[in-house]
């Protein structure tokens, strides 16, 4: 590597591996140490991890729980030894791993800023000059002279981030530390991280929130079972990641499908049931990945085991947290379905997908209108199938929130203030 390239690289990882030796009992380690005879099982947390991070880059690390994200960060930060490979880290590191990093619970927030700053390598003078800024940034001015043990976990995270970000680090490592902070502070923190990166420093970020990854990261590494499975553009890697998660959720549902199919506790067959749920493009192709803004067809196939003179067929769309974002049925749309015993009915509904990127699940429902279509609220559910289909949504448009409201700039006018 030439001197010039060296200057450009903040972190260079080459074939990093980490094996944890699992001992059945702590003294087995000592026995092994003394006798040289192996007394452990090996668990490989990381295998052959190689990548470079440039100065001024924000690198996101994504992966499921237990994929080795934190282990990797700890090795790069130097708080954990590695068993193979080489990691070259150029510059001062400031790391926030999880909660309340190194705080002394009995001391006040202000004293912890001082002690924490020293721990992170700041000089007393530097800390004194930055204390006010740290307190302001944390938004904890009213609590700063109280002991940290009285802080909520969110408040501790705020203080930890505020101190770590004040160090002016060459490399800032943030490991899910902000997951307990509120949204306003998270937004402020991401702004600060961007600032740090724009100032030429490097940020390594672990988060499970894909939106943060899209908003903040220049590049993303995806870890799976301790290996790098993808490196690249956030959108691209995020899509791969969500596909994997989605595939796993789908597999889970497949396994549990017979259970969700059972509609009554006795397991008796309902008068009508949903047998198939499909999402199609308008050209008739099946899809699981939807583009925000495009039109799609939802095709629900129902089988009737009794004559139902007026049935209503519909669906609800729920996001990952279980909130129903949209629900519709044929009755809402002014039509009902007449089902004959032994027949299958296929209902196709057209909708425009205006959802934000993410993973969604669709619940299919068939209900019987008891008083006819005029009284839509008077019905009994015949069959309700949770997670009848799951799908992901991607979007080219940048916006925040859960739905694309199709906003445009109408006009921007300027004039002297009144």
């Amino acid at each position, binding site marked *: 590597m030439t001197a010039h390239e060296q200057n450009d690289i903040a972190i260079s990882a080459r074939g990093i591996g980490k094996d944890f030796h699992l001992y059945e009992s702590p003294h087995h380690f000592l026995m092994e140490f003394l006798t040289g005879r192996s007394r452990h099982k090996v668990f490989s947390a990381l295998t052959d991890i190689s990548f470079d991070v440039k100065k001024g880059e924000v690198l996101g690390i994504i992966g499921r729980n237990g994929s080795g994200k934190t282990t990797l960060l700890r090795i790069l930060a130097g708080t954990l*030894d590695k068993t193979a490979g080489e990691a070259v880290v150029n510059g001062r590191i400031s790391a926030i791993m999880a909660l309340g990093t190194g705080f002394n619970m009995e001391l006040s927030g202000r004293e912890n800023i001082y002690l924490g700053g020293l721990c992170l390598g700041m000089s007393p003078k530097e800390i004194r000059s930055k204390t006010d800024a740290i307190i302001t940034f944390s938004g904890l001015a009213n609590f700063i002279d109280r002991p940290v043990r009285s802080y909520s976990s969110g408040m501790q995270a705020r203080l930890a981030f505020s101190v770590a970000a004040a160090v002016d680090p060459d490399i800032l490592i943030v490991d899910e530390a902000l997951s307990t902070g509120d949204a306003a502070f998270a937004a402020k923190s991401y702004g600060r991280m961007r600032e740090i990166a724009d100032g030429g420093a490097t940020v390594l970020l672990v988060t499970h929130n894909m939106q943060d990854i899209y908003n903040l990261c220049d590049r993303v590494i995806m870890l799976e079972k301790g290996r790098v499975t993808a490196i690249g553009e956030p959108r691209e890697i995020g899509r791969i990641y969500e596909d994997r998660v989605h595939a796993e959720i789908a597999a889970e549902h497949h396994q549990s499908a017979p259970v969700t199919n059972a509609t009554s506790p006795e397991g008796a067959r309902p008068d009508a049931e949903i047998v198939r749920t499909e999402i199609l493009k308008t050209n008739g192709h099946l899809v699981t990945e939807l583009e925000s803004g495009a039109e799609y067809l939802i095709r629900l196939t129902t089988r009737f085991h009794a004559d139902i003179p007026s049935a209503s067929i519909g669906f609800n769309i729920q996001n990952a947290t279980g909130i129903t974002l949209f629900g519709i049925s044929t009755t809402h749309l002014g039509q009902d379905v007449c089902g004959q015993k032994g027949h299958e009915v296929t209902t196709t509904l057209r909708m425009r997908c205006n959802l934000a990127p993410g993973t969604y699940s669709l619940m299919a429902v068939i209900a019987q209108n008891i008083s006819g279509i005029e009284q839509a609220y008077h019905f009994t559910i015949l069959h309700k199938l949770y997670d009848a289909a799951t799908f992901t949504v991607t979007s080219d448009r940048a916006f925040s929130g859960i739905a694309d409201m199709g906003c445009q700039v109408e006009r921007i006018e300027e004039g002297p203030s009144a």
Partner: protein
Amino acid sequence: MKISPAKKNQKTSEIPGFFHLKPLLDTARILIRNRILLWEMTRRDVLDRYTGQMLGAIWAFVHPLAMMAVFLFIFGVVFKMKVQVADMPDVQYNFAIYMISGLLPWMVASDAMSRSCLAIRAQAALVKQVVFPLEILPAKVAIAVFLPIVVGHIILAAYTLLAFGSLPITYLLLPLLYALLFLMMAGISAIFASGGVFVRDIKDVVQLIVLLGIYFAPVFFTLESLPRVWRILIYINPFAHAVLCFQDATFYGHFAHPASWVAFPILSLVSAILGASVFQKLKTFFGTYL
């Protein structure tokens, strides 16, 4: 890529063995570079144990004073122990000075040993989550334990002045003895602190040493009062040499035990080198085993 365990060790640490000068120099450099943090953490270590308590840091003085008073009462008043020294006739006062002279360095040693076992284990969050000079953790224990001995020597000097109207000139040797005792205890703390990460039983071993060790040093009796064969038990105890040197400084007033004045510096240096070597060798594994 397969790496055999032997090769792996070489890769993770450049230190050749458990006894080498380089780790000590490295450790000293790290501690000097982080001296403000070291000082702050030591101050916190002394004060924090008593924060939120009514009498606060006063307890730091009450404990050693109470211990001294109890030992003085039992051995001086109840058992009426005496110190037979030819050129010092006033035995009543002298026993108190004799005992406290030896007790103070032993209190430093026992304090440092019992507190070092958890020095790292109790700070798992710091070790795992912060990029932090870990050398500070055992070092601050070895410094913090000196508060009682300094206070104790001030009281002892005042008492000696009241009783005899003068102080032995050898009091001037105390800074040197402090430095040697610090080296000795820093080394031992480093070994116990890093060992305590891997072997929890160390704290029980240390409790035993702390409990029995005082009787293997000439604190409540004089070396000369022991039969010659038994003196070997004292001489193999490294802390006994520290005790004898401190007694020379604040009680005898001259180099009454020249052998210990040779042994104490050597043992201190060996302890510091060994402690730094072990610590530097093991510290890479703390993160994995905590």
